[in-house]
């Protein structure tokens, strides 16, 4: 952390002691959410999410591959992420950091556990199925990459067109229809700062946070959870935040339109 970050961290803590946040939000509000789809035409699906000034772009590509042995009639979904050096002064070029790997895996778990993509619909013929690759590109970092990325991957998948497959060739210019989506999963990530639990933390709030909890839900079930940072949460925190995550799911779902 730079000296300026240390000062901002202190500022965030002092504000919170008076029940305030740096941007005036209440503790359980998301920042403004904007979602734009189909902005990369070379991809089979794409979405850009602006969550306050955090910006992530997700591109989805489909390839044909051999199905896994244990699910011979299903395709697969792979989520990867890159914390691009242009997104923050703190990001360096090079192999994916543990943070980038965690981001991709947490987003992947929620969407996979919620059976959002109909994997059976990706089956083409014996030994062939569509493999879906969703790549998270972080373009600007201002905290809460997990929720922004979950929204962006979900939205991009909902706008993905499956290319035509004819005579052993992929014809990307033509589509055989939309990717079949069975369920919508969203996530709500909370930071704990000096005992206060806050939804959708900014970069300054993340720097000040002791602990973090992501809860991905659909309408009825918690689909994935991930605690981050070295601080602790109480068991009551966990259960209380799960209830709140269900509330927030209803809200974010409204932004995810086909």
């Amino acid at each position, binding site marked *: 952390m730079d000296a300026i970050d240390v000062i901002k961290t202190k500022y965030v803590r002092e504000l919170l002691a008076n029940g305030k946040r740096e941007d005036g939000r209440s503790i359980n509000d998301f920042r403004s959410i904007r979602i734009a789809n189909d902005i990369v035409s070379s991809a089979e699906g794409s979405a850009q999410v602006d969550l306050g000034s955090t910006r992530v772009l997700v591109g989805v590509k489909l390839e044909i591959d051999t199905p896994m042995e*244990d*699910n011979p009639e299903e395709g697969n979904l792979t989520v990867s992420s890159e914390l691009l050096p242009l997104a923050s002064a703190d990001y360096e070029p090079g192999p994916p950091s*543990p*943070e980038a*790997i*965690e981001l*991709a*895996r947490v987003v992947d*778990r*929620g969407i*996979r*556990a*919620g059976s959002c993509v109909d994997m059976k619909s990706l089956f083409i013929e014996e030994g062939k199925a569509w493999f879906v690759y969703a790549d998270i590109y972080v373009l600007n970092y201002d905290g809460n990459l997990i929720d922004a990325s979950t929204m962006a991957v979900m939205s991009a998948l909902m706008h993905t067109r499956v290319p035509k497959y004819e005579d052993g060739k992929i014809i990307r210019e033509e589509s055989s229809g939309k990717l079949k989506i069975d369920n919508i999963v969203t996530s709500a990530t909370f930071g704990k700062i000096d005992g206060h639990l806050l939804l959708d933390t900014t970069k300054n709030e993340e720097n000040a946070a002791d602990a973090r*909890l992501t809860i991905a839900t659909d309408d*009825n*079930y*918690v*689909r*994935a*959870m*991930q*605690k*981050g*940072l*070295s*601080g*602790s*949460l*109480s*068991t009551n*925190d*966990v*259960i209380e935040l*799960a*209830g709140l995550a*269900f509330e927030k799911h209803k809200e974010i779902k409204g932004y995810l339109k086909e």
Partner: protein
Amino acid sequence: MKANKPELIVDGKRLDGRGFGDLRSIKITANVLDNADGSAYIEWGGNKILAAVYGPKEVFPKHFADPTKARVKCRYSMAPFSSLEEHGRSGPNRRAIEISKVTTNVFENVIMLSEFPGSEIDVFIEVLQGDGGTRAAGITAASVALANAGIHMKDLVYAVSAGKIGEDIVIDLNKIEDNYSDCDMPMAIAPRNNDVLLLQMDGGLSKEDLKKAVSMVIEAGKKISSVQKEALKKVYTGIAEKYESNGV
């Protein structure tokens, strides 16, 4: 959900005869590696895992040194021969990197970092044989190894998974249950205040399921904690006996 799902619960019993809240057998031996400053070997059901601690020692590379506190570096790794499936690739995969990260967070919480400024404490968890719940067993063993290394900690952390099979919440999933279960939720807890230090989950849990799973983890933790403490006592009573028998 995978094909060919076996019947995991028959007449209220699990495949290996356990009830829903029963742990597999857990055996921990502390102080098993000569070179390490602290170590522990755990056999938890079919899991066989070694944990070793080196440090506090000089930070490598040096520029990572923090003059206010110690740096904790955890490495979780699975031996290429540790799973019933194909030979694993050597080097950490994405899963291992994530587990190493969340494990580091656990021990950063309990180690009194400010007592060892400018130093590094390495925690190595090597899974020799895996049978589900390796990260939980690894953390449980690493806690004992840290205590064995004499590193000051606020608490002796344990970890265990809760899960869901059909509609039932169960504790401590083995490999086959993990493969076909409807949910897996590993947790690491600092037992003094039941602080949650690690929590991961995927699958599907209602809020009621979650409450039940958390309380089952806390209940199972009492047993795990006592096995950890016994393992540590044995090392030091063993040393005392050795000296007494020498007439010191």
